[in-house]
């Protein structure tokens, strides 16, 4: 308890100083009062009170010292004492340290998982309002079934629940732009995926609605997710022009 007060005092210096000042002044005022009551005139009583009190500036500094030195030396003494106690009972200390280490380690590990999967927000604006809609295929017992494009178009036309709906599908493509073909991971998406997620292209542009039509030539947006070098080398090999 007193340790908490000492630490607190370190930060509340100004208030403590004012408190000390008020305390010392009240002492002198009470002494003056008593002097006047005993028949002295106020001036004499005040002089007498000051004389008996001693140098008020010096007293105040010594009171402040008493507060500060104890606060610091007290904390040091507490730390030294605890270290001595730890050394005196090494097996207990070891048990305690191991217990703490395991506990902290386990908590940290669990928190890292929870943070990564549950707490950390997705890097999109209003990520808490983005949901993934799946179809169910009860006949085959499939809980998460990708909606065929026709179903998606119906959903989007009849949609009164969401601000916007976009279709996304994982895919793999073969990139034939260098000496060897290369397998790259990609996402097939409707053009409105980018505005829906609040994403803009760092270079060039994303897809337009006209490119979203059947029969239009294929357009790709390179992600920066893997590494800059890879993206840059793909751009170089495909001779792609930037908009």
């Amino acid at each position, binding site marked *: 308890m007193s340790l908490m007060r*000492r630490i607190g005092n370190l930060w509340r210096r100004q208030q403590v100083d004012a408190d000390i000042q008020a*305390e010392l002044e009240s002492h002198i005022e*009470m002494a003056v009062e008593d002097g006047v009551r005993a028949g002295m005139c106020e001036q004499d009583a005040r002089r007498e009170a000051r004389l008996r009190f001693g140098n008020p500036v010096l007293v105040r500094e010594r009171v402040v010292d008493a507060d500060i030195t104890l606060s610091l030396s007290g904390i040091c003494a507490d730390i030294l004492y605890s270290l001595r106690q730890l050394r005196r009972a090494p097996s207990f200390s070891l048990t305690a340290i191991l217990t703490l280490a395991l506990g902290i380690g386990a908590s940290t590990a669990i928190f890292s998982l929870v943070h990564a999967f549950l707490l950390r927000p997705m890097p999109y604006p209003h990520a808490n309002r983005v949901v993934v809609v799946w179809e169910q295929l009860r006949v085959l017992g499939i809980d998460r079934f990708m909606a065929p494009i026709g179903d998606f178009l119906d959903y989007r036309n009849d949609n009164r629940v969401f601000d916007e709906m976009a279709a996304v599908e994982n895919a793999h493509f073969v990139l034939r732009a260098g000496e060897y073909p290369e397998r790259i991971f990609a996402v097939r998406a409707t053009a409105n995926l980018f505005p829906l997620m609040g994403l803009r292209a760092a270079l060039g542009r994303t897809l337009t609605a006209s490119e979203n039509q059947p029969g239009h030539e294929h357009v790709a947006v390179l992600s920066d997710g893997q590494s800059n070098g890879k993206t840059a080398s793909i751009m170089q090999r495909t001779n792609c022009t930037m908009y």
Partner: protein
Amino acid sequence: MARNDLQGSLDLLVLKTLSQRTKLHGYGIVLHIQKASDELLQVEEGSIYPALHRMEQSGWISSEWALTETNRRAKYYRLTSAGQKQLQAAEQDFEQLVKGIRAIRRYA
């Protein structure tokens, strides 16, 4: 070996004074020590405050602002249970010191 010095004696006087009252301000403690010792012990009045603050930091006494009989704001101190124990220890120390000095005086 009993630890005793002037500071310890002042602590003893203050703790003893507070043990006889529920609460008292610094000025009151000074007056009480002077009166109870038949004016033999004159504490320089200001010097009581570093001691009071040191004892409060040690948790022997606690303080609160309150009004005096003449409606003046003053900081009142009261003995804590830790202070009670400290008082007993200080009294024992003092007895030891007195005994020790008496023994030496008889011997000399």
